[in-house]
């Protein structure tokens, strides 16, 4: 299960001990650079962030690229819509100054323009850079520490509490669902469309019942421990960031910003 693999790595990487606020802040700066930067800057962000995640934080490469590839599926699915243009084959208005005709279908001409190609290529760079930033956060920061960051940026208490309870129980419920599905398969279920739909519906009903049972149990469990109104997080304790990473981070961000300004000034972007 992908969920568990990513979650496990987020606790077992070389960056686990580093302040989550620093990691999120660092990723945030690079998010901004990915959005504001020109393609060369985006490419640099992508390479540099991948380096941090794979080399410094020692996240397994296979998993990293699997997640990257999986996310790109959305990009791949949108490619036809981004690239292909449909024009009424009037023979006059098709702006073919910089494009190629792929084919015609009835009154329609299907073509690709150079403009949409470069737009798509640019989009690919931005998406890759942003993904590298997201994956840095995803793989190096456990969700529980992201909660501390959420608290820092004044997310309402109720949202933090709900996130906490959800995170505590998604693994449990996912395991339950998985176990029930295995049992159904052992008994010859999950067979065909109608059977699959029926068995999945049964599973959901059962899971809902189990969830409500857990709710009752948890109410007793927490009441006996003196639950009153709030579920408090432990206070945030900042762990120091090794100077070597701090230096590289700050220098890198400066250099990338400078490069972007220079590109802008020279009129490349």
């Amino acid at each position, binding site marked *: 299960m992908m969920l568990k693999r990513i979650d*496990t790595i987020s606790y077992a990487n070389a960056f686990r001990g580093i302040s989550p606020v620093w990691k999120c802040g660092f990723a945030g700066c690079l998010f901004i650079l990915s959005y504001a930067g020109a393609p060369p800057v985006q490419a640099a962000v992508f390479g540099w962030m991948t380096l941090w995640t794979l080399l410094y934080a020692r996240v397994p490469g296979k998993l990293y690229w699997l997640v990257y590839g999986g996310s790109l599926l959305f990009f791949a699915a949108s490619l036809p819509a981004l690239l292909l243009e449909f024009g009424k084959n009037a023979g006059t208005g098709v702006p073919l100054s910089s494009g190629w005709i792929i084919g015609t279908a009835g009154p329609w001409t299907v073509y690709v323009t150079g403009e949409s190609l470069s737009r798509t290529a640019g989009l690919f760079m931005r998406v890759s850079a942003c993904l590298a930033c997201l994956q840095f956060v995803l793989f190096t920061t456990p969700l*529980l520490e992201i909660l501390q960051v959420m608290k820092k940026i004044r997310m309402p208490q109720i949202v933090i509490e709900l996130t*906490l309870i959800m995170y505590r129980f998604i693994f*449990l419920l996912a395991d339950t669902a998985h176990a029930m599905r295995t049992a159904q398969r052992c008994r010859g279920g999950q067979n065909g469309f109608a059977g699959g739909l029926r068995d999945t519906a049964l599973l959901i009903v059962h899971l809902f019942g189990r969830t409500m049972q*857990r709710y009752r149990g948890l109410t007793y*469990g927490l009441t006996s*421990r003196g639950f009153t109104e709030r579920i408090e*997080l432990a206070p945030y304790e900042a762990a120091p960031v090794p100077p070597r990473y701090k230096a590289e981070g700050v220098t890198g961000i400066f250099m990338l910003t400078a490069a972007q300004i220079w590109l802008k000034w020279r009129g490349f972007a």
Partner: protein
Amino acid sequence: MNPIMELADVVYSYPGTGKKALAGLSLTIPAGRKIALCGHNGSGKSTFFLHAVGIHRPQSGTVRWKGAPVSYKRTDLQELRRQVGLVFQDPEQQLILGTPYEDISYGLRNVGVSEPEIRARTEAVLERMGLEQLAHTPIHHLSLGQKKRVTLAGVLVLEPSLLLLDEPTAYLDRASERLLLDELADIRQSGVTVVMATHDMDLAYTWADEVLVMDQGACLLQGPPGRVFAETDTIERIGLELPMLLRLWRSLPRALREGVDPPRNADAFGELIAARLQAAAAQS
């Protein structure tokens, strides 16, 4: 023998069911002892525990804590729950925060202890239970035995004077079971009264100072293990089994057993038989 908690004629039925979960339960928990609470699933053990921490309120009858009837005012209940620690059978029911460290400090934070003290007490209890290594591992990565130890730590950190354990060894393998029992032995050293609900008659027989047998919401027998398990008829009528050690003892020739108390563990058993044999040999 001063009782730390007493129940007198407590009746309780869950809303929406006709059946009485507790049907006039009367029992006494003597202070400073190890008490095993035996009975079937559904005999009312867990319902009794929920009364002991004031989550359920008797429909009739009274619950007394250290001599005085339990008050159901909010602040009094908070205080009662600090003094009576309940460890549920299913640890998932009781663990709420993400890591052992955070979860154990949760109870202290509810009571309003200062942050430095929270930290000191949490770290102390983590060390005592051998959980330091796991302090910052997310709970969903722990094994069942480890989770059970975290729930126990989360209750112990509040320094309760009465500790209630609902089937602490259920589903544990022997190694984890032994670890847990060792920790309970340590806890007992500090004078805490421990009540353990269990199905495991062997465990009840060897571990407890005092055994309570419940059936259908009432307490049938109470006393030292030797005396309670001597009531073979009652034990068998309600479908409980005698401890294996006792069954084996009973299967021995009568001559061998006469005039001695049954042994309470395997080593004592062997020694006793050896002694009896020597005595018999010397006589003949």
